């Protein structure tokens, strides 16, 4: 094929990583605030900006990543996820600057384990954040805008709702600050003044030609003889009239500058989808999932078909209330993505520890069982995820428990007694029992929060300290 015809150097370049790496996306911009921002430059970004690359195992051993120079083995072979992103393919110091891309790669893998379809983000929401419309997949043919087909006959286009375009040449003016708008006018619009005049002339010509044609048809004249020319004076007066015609001018400008526009609004819709956050920056699926629906039923081996899908473990990233701030919804991380809890009520602290308030005694932070309800990609390319807390019965099903009260295996209790894991918090200063003079409790066992708490996973709901105490008081003593 053409590969053979090319020179060896050209072939080499064609197949090299150097040319196949796409340029990175711009970093998500920081918020526009009057106060100082707090930010970390090493924090994981809400979406990946660089391509992640991987190499075969044998090439990895040689440090061969298909780049200009081999990468150091010490920092690439030790990792369990040898996937990197290239920050600078050849820096001024003759170094290939690279970083681990495991964060986004693993997040994607975890996300795909959820089997979550991506649905269109519904801009109209109730106060509680519930969507008014049923979920619509982004891949449904009537909303899928990956490819805008110009060949579609206009009849169908009129009937079908117009697909949202997601790439425009012009900026989103509603989202610009005054300064940015001024700069945009100064730098790019002023120069196009003459072009705009020509554009308006063309529009006028087509409009006039259509009118003349209609006239010609009505009067039975020859269509070929219809020729329209616009004299300069007529164009001048038309442009002056345009200044007072806001809607007409707006339409022309939108088309000329290719500004992001809301098709719904343009066709007379009252509510604009782009009003708040602007046009989408990416395809509404963002490539996270290609599933079209979540309508499937979990068939449990013991309990049969279940109403809801499999539960997933979630981490409470931010409880509803901490000392410094209170928020309506707790933020719950699922598969490495921070989603919001669908429940807004502050429930009793006893119900789910660590969700309404911060609980320092849960090693590694609070975790709960959740069920992701819907996911979408918003205009800024961030994932919008809503999760439901799981009901008690669903949790029991997920844990494979048949009875209401989960029981810890004896071996786990024994192991927990022997193991002392470090906790995040400093232990409560403990009074030696001997100094109290009561001597009623076992000297060897530290009680309650004074003790380093053994690791409690999601499956270990009961309070181990209670269990420990019960076991020590009631049952025969074990060698500790």
């Amino acid at each position, binding site marked *: 094929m053409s590969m053979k015809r090319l020179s060896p150097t050209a072939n080499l370049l064609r197949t090299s990583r150097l040319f196949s790496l796409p340029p990175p996306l711009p970093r998500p911009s920081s918020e526009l605030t009057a106060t100082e921002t707090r930010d970390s430059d090493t924090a994981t970004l809400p979406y990946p900006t660089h391509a992640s690359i991987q190499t075969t195992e044998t090439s990895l051993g040689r440090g061969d990543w298909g780049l200009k120079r081999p990468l150091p083995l010490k920092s690439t072979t030790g990792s369990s996820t040898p996937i990197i992103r290239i920050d600078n393919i050849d820096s001024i110091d003759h170094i290939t600057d690279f970083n681990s891309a495991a964060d986004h790669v693993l997040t994607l893998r975890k996300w795909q384990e959820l089997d979550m379809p991506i649905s269109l983000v519904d801009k109209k929401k109730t106060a509680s954040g519930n969507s008014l419309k049923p979920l619509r997949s982004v891949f449904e043919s009537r909303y899928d805008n990956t490819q805008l087909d110009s060949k579609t006959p206009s009849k169908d286009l009129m009937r079908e709702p117009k697909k949202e375009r997601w790439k425009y040449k012009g900026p989103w003016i509603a989202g610009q600050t005054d300064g940015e708008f001024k700069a945009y006018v100064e730098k790019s619009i002023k120069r196009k003044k003459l072009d705009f005049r020509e554009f308006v002339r063309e529009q006028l010509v087509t409009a006039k030609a259509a009118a003349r044609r209609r006239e010609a048809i009505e009067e039975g004249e020859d269509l070929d003889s219809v020729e329209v020319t616009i004299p300069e004076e007529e164009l001048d007066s038309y442009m002056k009239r345009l200044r007072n015609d806001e809607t007409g001018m707006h339409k022309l400008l939108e088309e000329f500058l290719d500004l992001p526009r809301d098709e719904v609004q343009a066709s007379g819709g009252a509510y604009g989808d782009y009003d708040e956050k602007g046009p989408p920056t990416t395809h509404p699926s963002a490539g996270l999932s290609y599933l079209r629906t979540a309508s499937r039923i979990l068939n449990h081996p013991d309990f049969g078909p279940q109403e809801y899908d499999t539960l997933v473990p979630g981490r409470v990233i931010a409880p509803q209330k901490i000392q410094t701030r209170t928020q309506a919804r707790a933020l719950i991380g699922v598969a490495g993505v921070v989603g919001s809890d669908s429940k807004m009520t502050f429930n009793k602290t006893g119900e789910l520890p660590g969700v309404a308030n*911060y609980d320092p005694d849960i090693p590694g932070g609070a975790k709960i069982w959740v069920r992701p309800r819907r996911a979408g990609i918003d205009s800024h390319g961030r994932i919008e995820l809503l999760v439901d807390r799981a009901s008690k019965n669903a949790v029991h099903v997920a844990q494979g428990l048949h009875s209401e009260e989960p029981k810890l295996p004896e071996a786990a209790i024994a192991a927990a007694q022997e193991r002392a894991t470090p906790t995040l918090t*400093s232990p409560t*200063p403990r009074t030696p029992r001997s100094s*109290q003079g009561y001597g009623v409790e076992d000297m060897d066992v530290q009680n309650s929060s004074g003790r380093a708490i053994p690791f409690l996973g999601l499956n270990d709901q009961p309070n181990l300290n*209670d269990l420990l105490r019960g076991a020590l008081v*009631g049952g025969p003593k074990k060698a500790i």
Partner: protein
Amino acid sequence: MMMSRRLESMASRLAEARNICRTFSTQSPRLQTSAAPAPAAPPTYYNPQPNRKKESNTFKFAAKLAQAGSPTALKRVSEYDRMRQGLVDVHKNNRALGLERQIHRKWKAGDVYAPHDLSPVEMTKWRKRRPRERDAFDQLGINPLHEYKNFSMMSEYMTPMGRIKHRKETGLRAVNQRKISKAIRRAVGMGLLPSVHKHPEVLEVEARERNTRLMFGRTAGR
């Protein structure tokens, strides 16, 4: 009773929490080194409604003791246990407060995290204030020189002692920094602005805000 009534008012509750923090702060070296906390706990921290589950355990525990020993011992033990329960809750609260104060990152829905994002190193980075990245005047399309009469805007670019702030604090680009300093000097020269402190009206507003915060807690008025 008195205690519970007192707890009803929000302000006093906050003050209470702060006091507790100070005395029992986990960071306090006094408490870290000494093995024994005050054995006689202040009766105010006594929790009259301990966890039910715990109580039942206590009961079992005490009942066992009652079989073995005297009823006075049983009474003493249960009293002690209840007192300890109250103490534990206070300690837990303090530890929670101490750790909450170290949560600097304001997570938002849609953030993506990897394990290192949950590490203390990363949290320390979120604590630091970063200099403003964008030039405020460029963003707003304002020429600072035209604003020399706007004393609240001028005060924003002055220190409390009336000195013009450095570029690394204001985050302005060089052109706008020169313009704002010229505007401040002009305002001072015209007698519109004091040269050794901020404008009195700005000071008054700041003082009022500070008072509100002190009275109603740190998030008030925001």
